[in-house]
């Protein structure tokens, strides 16, 4: 539709001077581009509110100090110094809590009406979630590297090589990526950031604490052992320990990758479906 006769200056001000023509493109290509645009937006937000990133470091650091120096003396793990056993668990915990941001970020966008606007745009239906998860995954890489440095400061040492440590970081990032899809579902199901946090914690606690992240499940009651040995946090911690501390690795890495990919493959379409039907 071209504009009709322009009668006054105010109308002239709103006449299109820039054609602003959308570019043609193929569906899958647009899904990628939209996802990257949303990732950029979410990363910019993280950069603009640096306090959030600081708190993201402070919380696991407190756990490190507490378990390393307060509880650590009373915990003995056969075959490892406790700090070496602990730090991979802390890395996994950091990624798990980092994934909470996916729930909070989406719930806040929903609460502020931003999702309404985005859903009224001719953009890919998966880009809002994909961009959120990718940004939180990127953030997790950054936080994990920092936690690795903090681990070194309190006496943690990798006993393998750089390549294996990098593989361990990759395991962590993949695990955080998978959990983000669980939290995306939670974020879309509540109406604001506080509610997301409240809803996500009861899920996180049994995953993170009833696991082998901080202690050896052998000393837990039998029913809890069964859970603690066969759940994604323990699988990830096992894989990261194998990568960083040595010992048989391939099997543990495969189990953790299977958990992460399984969660992501099953839940990402469910989350996108939820987004479409908000």
């Amino acid at each position, binding site marked *: 539709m071209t504009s009709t006769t322009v009668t006054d200056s105010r*109308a002239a001000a709103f006449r299109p001077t820039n054609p*602003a023509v959308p570019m043609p493109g193929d569906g899958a290509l647009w899904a990628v581009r939209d996802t990257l*645009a949303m990732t950029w937006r979410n990363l910019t937000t993280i950069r603009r509110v640096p306090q959030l990133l600081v708190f993201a470091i402070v919380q696991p650091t407190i756990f490190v100090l507490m378990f390393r120096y307060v509880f650590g003396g009373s915990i003995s793990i056969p075959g490892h110094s406790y700090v070496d056993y602990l730090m991979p668990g802390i890395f996994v915990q950091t990624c798990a809590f980092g994934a909470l941001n996916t729930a909070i970020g989406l719930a806040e966008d929903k609460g*502020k009406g*931003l999702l309404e*606007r985005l*859903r*009224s745009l*001719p*953009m890919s239906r998966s880009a809002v979630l994909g961009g959120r998860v990718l940004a939180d995954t990127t953030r997790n890489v950054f936080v994990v590297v920092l936690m690795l440095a903090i681990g070194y400061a309190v006496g943690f040492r990798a006993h393998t090589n750089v390549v294996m440590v990098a593989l361990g970081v990759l395991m962590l990032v993949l695990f955080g990526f998978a959990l983000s899809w669980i939290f995306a579902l939670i974020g879309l199901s509540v109406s604001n950031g506080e509610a997301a946090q409240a809803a996500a914690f009861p899920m996180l606690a049994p995953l993170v604490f009833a696991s082998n992240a901080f202690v050896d499940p052998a000393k837990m009651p039998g029913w809890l052992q069964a859970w603690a040995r066969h759940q994604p946090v323990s699988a990830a911690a096992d894989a990261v320990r194998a990568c960083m501390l040595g010992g048989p690795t391939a099997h543990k890495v495969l189990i953790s990758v299977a958990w992460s990919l399984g969660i992501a493959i099953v839940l990402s379409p469910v989350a996108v479906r939820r987004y479409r039907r908000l």
Partner: protein
Amino acid sequence: MRVTGTGKPAIVVDGLVKHFGDVQALKGVSFEVPRGTVLGLLGPNGAGKTTAVRILTTILQPTAGRAQINGFDVVASPRDVRRSIGLAGQYAAVDENLTGRENLVLVGRLNHLSKAAAGARAIELLDQFHLSDAANRPARTYSGGMRRRLDLGAALVTHPPVLLLDEPTTGLDPASRQDLWEVIGGLVADGTTVLLTTQYLEEADRLADRIIVIDQGVIAAEGTAAELKARLGETTVVLGFADAASAASAVAVLAKHAATILPADDKGLTMPLRGGPTTVRDALNALDHAGLSPTRIDLHEPTLDDVFLSLTGATA
């Protein structure tokens, strides 16, 4: 370049029904909006206005009935509908942590403009909405009026032929409201079709060519502002006097001028403002000749409460 369908009305809504569980938000609403005109959807909170807008933006699926924008069905061709509309809502859906410019560029990119086109359009819109000085400040530092302008700018990135405004001025101060009305007026002058929801009769009166009053999910009345006002009651002038005797004399004097002079209370009277300002002048002159001078003069406009009381008898 605008995406256009056929020569049909810009918006066609036919028998739209939406249930949320047991709640019937829309119970069969039908209307059309011809191209280049403004339809005001007027109603109290919970009337179904926002539900109608959300169906038109493809965000919500109707339970029954159909809706078309720019010739595209909202259920069958949601992508074409999304390409045809701009949405600005009561929540001012801008990202607080992005700058004004970044917000507009992001919406441009998500509308699949090239980086250069999205950047150029952002600058153009910032200028048009008097936000150039604040272009590089995070939107959280903006005032309420600035956020609404940015939100409206975001809705206009691709020059959409149809604009959906959900309570665009709710919560704004009067100056910002005036400001936004002028902007919307400019868009309409340029040929954009607008559907506007509002709780304010004044806003519908000012902007809308036609008004639909919606209440509890059904259309309670429709027509031009003038037609509705005629149905809803008219503007009246209330004159107050120093004592009851003066008021009684004034009623007697003015009875010769207008047929429906009513004593408002023992010290005042109410007369309809049918002839516009001259009615007041004539009335005051007549009172002056009779040696009467009112101590108080009020204009009484029909309010939205009056609208709902008279149209639905419901608890407005």
